[in-house]
């Protein structure tokens, strides 16, 4: 056993738990969100240590990146709603009767009252203790690695995780795409989108950065997508990277979002699931089972599904950042 590695594990875990604790204990929401993003990046490090580079990539891009962007824009939205309500604009609803602290409360959560301390602590300790006990009694099971390994030659791809995601357990992945879509449908059903409470920073720095960053992000995204068939990477990581590029573009000109046409937009967000489902139904009709491929066609079909899924995920993530439905969708 390598003593240094154990030390690394212990320090990393202590850091992760510590950051999570500070995040949940902070009264300032902005601080909590920044700590949460740090938490995500530390987790990515832990996933590398657990020999899961795919997950590390996904955690950094989705868990820390996209979630972080969503959290930060939410805080800005809450702040601007509070400001608007307090300034008593004619169109805003009447101010909150609960008092003058409404503005503070949006971005500040007072420390919880003491009487919940002991019950909550006891409950968490009991749950955590029982979990640890159960985990320490578990055998050193090998899991499904040998089974996957034995079937890699018929999966159509060379990377085991892509084989599991898009072939052996393709149904789960299809539903995962569906869940991203349902989240967007849910956000859209709440109403039209509001202005993003951000101003483009004046000066040449932002446009210049964007001119550099966005092409790099696109190239990276395409590379990560392409790499997925034989190395860490794949549709979700690539979709998150492209989605991040889209979010940057939205942030650069938050007041002049292009009027998105409803029809093509709907097609774009549902292209991933639609194509996946068509391939799946074809598999059923052709006798390979629902969501099954003929062995010779597995590779091209998987790549096709991944390309469509990447585009849909990227588009959906940007739309989730903008939050409400575009006016074009009602036309």
């Amino acid at each position, binding site marked *: 056993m390598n003593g240094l590695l154990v030390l690394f594990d212990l320090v990393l875990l202590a850091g992760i738990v510590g950051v999570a604790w500070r995040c949940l204990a902070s009264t300032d929401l902005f601080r909590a969100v920044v700590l949460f993003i740090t938490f995500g990046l530390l987790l990515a490090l832990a996933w590398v240590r657990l020999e899961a580079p795919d997950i590390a990539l996904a955690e950094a891009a989705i868990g820390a990146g996209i979630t972080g962007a969503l959290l930060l824009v939410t805080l800005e939205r809450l702040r601007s709603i509070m400001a608007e309500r307090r300034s008593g604009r004619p169109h805003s609803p009447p101010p909150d009767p609960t008092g003058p602290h409404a503005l503070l409360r949006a971005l500040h959560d007072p420390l919880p009252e003491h009487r919940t301390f002991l019950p909550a602590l006891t409950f968490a300790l009991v749950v955590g203790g*029982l*979990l640890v*006990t*159960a*985990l320490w*009694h*578990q*055998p050193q*099971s*090998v*899991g*499904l690695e040998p*089974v*996957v390994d034995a*079937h890699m030659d018929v999966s159509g791809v060379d990377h085991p995780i892509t084989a599991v995601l898009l*072939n*052996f*357990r*393709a*149904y*789960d992945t*299809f*539903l*995962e795409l*569906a*869940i991203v*879509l*349902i*989240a967007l*449908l*849910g956000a*859209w*059903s*709440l*109403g039209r989108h509001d202005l993003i409470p951000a101003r483009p920073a004046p000066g040449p720095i932002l446009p210049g950065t964007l001119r550099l960053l966005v092409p790099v992000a696109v190239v990276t995204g395409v590379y990560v997508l392409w790499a997925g068939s034989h190395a860490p990477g794949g549709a979700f990581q690539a979709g998150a990277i492209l989605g991040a590029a889209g979010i940057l573009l939205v942030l650069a000109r938050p007041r002049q979002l292009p009027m998105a046409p*409803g029809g093509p937009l*709907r*097609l774009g*967000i*549902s292209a991933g*699931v*639609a194509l996946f*489902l068509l391939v*799946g*139904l074809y*598999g*059923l009709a052709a006798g*390979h*089972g*629902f*969501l*099954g*491929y003929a062995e010779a066609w597995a590779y091209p079909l998987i790549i096709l599904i991944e390309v469509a899924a990447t585009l849909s995920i990227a588009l959906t993530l940007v739309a989730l950042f903008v939050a409400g*439905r575009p006016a074009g*969708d*009602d036309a």
Partner: protein
Amino acid sequence: MSPPGAEWLPAGIAGLVGLSLAVAVLATAWPRQAHRIGLLGALAVTAWVLVLSAVFLNAGPDPETAATRVALGGWEAPLGLMLHLDGLSVTLLVLTAVVGLATSLYSLGYVHDRIERRQFWPLWLWLWAGLNMLFLSGDAFNLYITLEVVSLSAVALVAFTGTAAAVSGAVRYLLVNILGSLSFLMGVVLLFGEHGVLDLVLLEARTEAGPTERMAAVLMTAGLMLKAALFPLHVWLAPAHGSAPAPVSAVLSGLVVTGSFYLILRLWLGVFAPLATPAFGILVGLLGVGALVWGSLQALRAGRLKSIVAYSTVAQFGYLLVAFPLMLVDPGTWRVVVFFTVVHALAKASVFLAAGTLQHAAGHDRLADLGDVLRARPRMVFALGLAGVSLMGLPFTGGFIAKYLLLEAGLGTVLAGSVIGVLWVLAIAGGGLLAAAYVLRMVAPSFQRGRADAGETVSLWMDWVPLGLATVAALAGLAGTLTLNTLALTPGAP
């Protein structure tokens, strides 16, 4: 043309999943036609489910091998995912189809705004597809994913009216659902860590009463109890179900809650069967008595029609918990429990739909001011009454048969020498009386003298669908034997 035989079943099962998904995807991609796609889809899915169940029953499967398992993509477990059809899933698929079709027809009249229609139908069709997939799933992790499909679309539908009450109900509902899902997922992870497989049948063959199974059972059951609003984890239910649009409330109280309960039952009949002990049964039974009493009292106190109905769901689900200790004495009781759930779902959905029509006509659903509309709309009163009678369990209704069978099981426990059995019998009988009280509270204003005012006009769908569904609920008693025989075709369950 001869009817398809048992060899068609695997394709039929995968086809049902494919069809429900195709309808949802199509409505998402083409929202302008979503209501037409939805109506055609509802008819097609219902027809498919009925054919599937007919083939399943007609194939005359041998009870030992009755489950049809489909390897998706041709990959057998443990590598791949398996769909799983047996008597229990067939029963719930048919229930979902009946309530789903009624809700779809009702929604044609209820959601008439052009823009709202586009938002409503895709979400509702995803919810329906999610339920179908939940009842067909045979894989622990896939169950988590289907639960998420169901809960995210259900939350979105709760928030649909966009009022403060609905949105705050939806937020609460969403947080509870995420917590429930995570708890469930942690249980799945524990089982995977111990046994290295996710397929329920393979898991069942490997489980024994060890620390992993105990902790997984606690986590998964607690998570699902949260989602099913089983007492004492029910506080989120009334605001969410009570403030959602009427067809959504019907689906939530009738089907979504039933879906989580189905999963609890499925797990305890299979993977966790070695863990059930009498002490545990009594604990669950006591929770059930608590639910019956608390839910009924809240239903008697609530001021809004839809709140009454929502609280009655908490109360009625108490029966399912009370049945738990009975199942330990006579394992066959689980079939009665499922039959009870089916009848409850039908009756509860029709009550919610009738309440929606009344609310539409009167412009509110405050019980105190609802007399005028109730007096002018005898059809709605009849639907409320008919479904209510089934909830109470008066003779000749589905509810009667279900409660009679439950009582019989309870008396069996008493005769077997269990003292606490007396409490279960009292709870089952007393729960019916309390139900009678709150059902009468709902229809009572129509028997008082006073002005009759039909209020706003309602569409034909909204006028007739509640009555139709209430009739189905009342007649479900006739299908009692059929249901129990279908449920007997569940391998592994007693």
